[in-house]
């Protein structure tokens, strides 16, 4: 038999509300796919994903209740990923790419490059 609660705890309702917010943001992200956002489509989708990740970290993973060292660790980890992606995007976006042997391998397998 399930024992009675041994101590008063935080209410479960905030967790349910966080889930509802996550579902709403997921629906928003899905709906935004069909909007003519142009070059902003991916940044908007990633911004919504970041908002959802923040909800999970704060509400479900209780990051607010963790030590400062843990919060710093999370910032460093996510910040490193953002820096790595920004570095790669900066390199790929501003580098002149010459068509070269990188396509030879796929062509050998019968796959040809198709221009948009």
């Amino acid at each position, binding site marked *: 038999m*399930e*024992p*009675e*609660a*041994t*101590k008063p*705890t*935080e209410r*479960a309702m905030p*967790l*349910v509300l*966080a*889930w509802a917010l*996550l*579902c709403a943001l*997921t629906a928003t*992200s*899905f709906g*935004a*796919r069909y909007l003519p956002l142009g070059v902003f*489509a*991916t940044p908007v*989708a*990633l911004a*919504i*994903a970041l908002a*959802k*990740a923040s909800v*999970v*970290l704060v509400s*479900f*993973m209780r990051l607010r209740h*963790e*030590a400062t*060292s*843990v919060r710093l*660790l*999370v910032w460093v*980890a996510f910040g*490193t*990923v953002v820096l*790595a*992606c920004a*570095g*790669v*995007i900066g*390199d*790929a*976006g501003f580098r002149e790419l010459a068509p070269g042997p*990188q*396509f030879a*391998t*796929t062509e050998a*397998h*019968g*796959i*040809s*490059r*198709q221009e*948009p």
Partner: protein
Amino acid sequence: MAEHFESVERKDQAAHLGMWLFLASEVLLFGALFAVYAGYRVEFGYEFVVASSHNSIAIGTTNTFVLVTSSLFAALAVHAARSGRLRRAAGLLALTIGCGLLFLGLKAVEYGEHFRAGILPGNHYHYAALPTHAANAFFTLYYLMTGLHALHVTGGMVALGAVGYRAFRGAYSAERHLPLELAVLYWHLVDVIWLFLWPLLYLMH
């Protein structure tokens, strides 16, 4: 309690810090793949969008709702454990694992559709409708990222199963259920990673 910890609370704090360090290393692991994806996306922007449209938005979106709901069940399991309702916590963890199984089942359906169409990773790619180098690169990354994520989902389910079984057997209490909390933390990270995979692999246009 080990002698070098001055209190149980300190020991729990150290365990939490250790778990978060592990989670940070997981973020960096996936971060490397996200960086590779970013580079290819800049180089093959249009072709990546075309390739991503061959993924099932219905399956990807359903899986997002499934994982988000699984995170709610997992968080409620911790809430139940904190109030000493360990059987309830075990039940909620079972629901979380059920969501994980549903996620993997849907992912298997999608993989099956891709396999039949010839959408395979690397040199095995032979999808006639999209015979481009960039599409090959996109789907190779797709398999790398979703495959690695699926492995993490599987590992998370095993961890939740282990702590759920111990909770059901009464091995924990309202005060002492640290393994359950740490396993749930891991599950939430699996959810967080999918929140970024979903728009990048399914929602581009």
